[in-house]
């Protein structure tokens, strides 16, 4: 079941130059959500963002009926959303898509880059509730582009790479020492981020026969299977990333 609910923004916290966390309050009971699922958010008053914007569920608090979104400003739609002051109303269609599966092992690595870190917080919390301690590997261009590290650290260890070496390991996530081994100490990779990053991880996983669940950020018009705009080639032909994904087993994709 998917819903169309009006939320109130109770908090707009800027993280970095281009990242914002919005805390949204619903005035009823929230439906259950799975990490990796997303919302299609309506952007008002923006001629160049007529369609809704897909954004991952970054965090959920069922007691308070609050959702958090972590948004990176990349264009008019996200810029408009990030500028909304507390008190604004926001319409969400949610929860959409197929989220991450629970692992068949408790040795997991959650790898994020860019706004792809968004779903990993909710995923980490979810894993922890199932008795699995998440370990995060987060990549960014530079130290000041890293967001909400403290929130992730509350859940588990956080490894970091930066392209300029200003924090953690220098390079891309795939260059982190934790990856540089033929017998890695994890059996599942969960990832969300730039395609290039996820493809590198998928390749890594394939060679070592470990599971890699990737979350795609394909361009969407509807977000719920009505338009067929968001497809990705899979072993079964074109599949919609909005309903058959956004999370896929990397082996299922034509990567």
């Amino acid at each position, binding site marked *: *079941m*998917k*819903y*169309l609910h009006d939320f109130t923004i109770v908090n707009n916290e800027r993280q970095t130059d281009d990242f914002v966390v919005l805390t949204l309050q619903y005035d009823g009971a929230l439906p259950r959500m799975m990490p990796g699922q997303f919302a299609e958010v*309506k952007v008002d008053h923006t*001629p*160049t*963002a*007529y*369609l*809704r914007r897909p954004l991952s569920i970054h965090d959920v608090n069922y007691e308070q009926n609050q959702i958090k979104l972590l948004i990176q400003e990349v264009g008019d739609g996200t810029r408009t959303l990030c500028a909304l002051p507390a008190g604004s109303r926001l319409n969400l*269609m949610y929860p959409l898509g197929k989220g991450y599966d629970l692992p068949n092992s408790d040795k997991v690595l959650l790898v994020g880059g860019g706004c792809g870190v968004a779903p990993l917080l909710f995923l980490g919390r979810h894993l922890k509730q199932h008795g699995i301690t998440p370990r995060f590997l987060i990549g960014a261009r530079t130290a000041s582009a890293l967001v909400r590290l403290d929130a992730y650290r509350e859940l588990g260890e956080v490894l970091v790479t930066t392209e300029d070496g200003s924090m953690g390991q220098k390079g891309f996530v795939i260059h982190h020492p934790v990856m540089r081994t033929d017998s890695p100490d994890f059996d599942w990779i969960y990832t969300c981020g730039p395609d290039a990053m996820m493809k590198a991880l998928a390749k890594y996983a394939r060679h070592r026969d470990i599971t890699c669940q990737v979350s795609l950020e*394909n*361009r*969407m*018009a*509807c*977000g*719920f*299977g*009505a*338009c*067929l*705009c*968001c*497809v*990705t*080639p899979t072993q079964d*032909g*074109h599949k919609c990333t909005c309903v058959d994904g956004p999370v896929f087993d990397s082996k299922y994709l034509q990567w």
Partner: protein
Amino acid sequence: MVDLSVKLGNITLKNPVMTASGTFGYGEEYADFIDIDALGGIVVKGTTLHPRQGNPYPRMAETPMGMLNAVGLQNKGVDGFIDDIYPRICHFNTAIFVNVSGSTIEEYVETAAKINELEHIPGIELNISCPNVKEGGMAFGTSCPSAVAVTKAVRDVYKKHLMVKLSPNVTDVTEIAKGVEGAGADSVSLINTLLGMAINAKTRRPELSTITGGLSGPCVKPVALRMVWQVSKSVKIPVVGMGGISSAEDAIEFLLAGASAIQIGTANFVDPKITVKVIEGISEYLQVNNINSARELTGALITD
């Protein structure tokens, strides 16, 4: 109470609000949001004789108050529709139209003939205007002789309501409308998408894998309204209007311009409840203006 029902030839719709092909899935996708049975009708996805994978990703780009799509008729083929989908949706208490496409006249005919057998499908919408496929598609709808030929051929095998969907990418849409009317169409619907293009200045690449795609959404409304007005003045069969409708006011404008019913496409993505809101808005408009029936709006534009 106002009477919202309208007639499309032999079919009576409970109200003038339908959904546009390719934007409403098979109806089911919207069942969490609205009561499908409240709609005047739905037009399901473009269906072809054989299954199609459609075009490569990316298939969508946003433009000012609109979008381009290049889905390219991805569908399971008519047999897939009949076996897998039809049984799931035939219970909807609304007029279900199947949008039929093809690369050759034979494909159109075979597909239509199969759908002719489905009890709960009162009509087809012949898509001779899809800009997103290499063969057939729009080519049929941009030349009058070929539009007439495909309509005639399908008319021979298809016994129920035959709606023909016109392309806006033509010099004179009335010529083609008159042609398909003469060839036996029961109604015409318009507009399909305008052929457009988007470029990413940063990457210096087209935004769509197919370079060009079909433009829809509020940005096309003025062109759509003009064509509906032109066509409704030149044919006697009912006209179904669409293109950018996203409010009851928009819908009423199309009715005034001459449409007997309307379809809503892209706006469903932004507000999946828009169809029922438009139905309510039309009802309110009729009440406020003391008009008894939605049918009275058709062509009621005052142009003295």
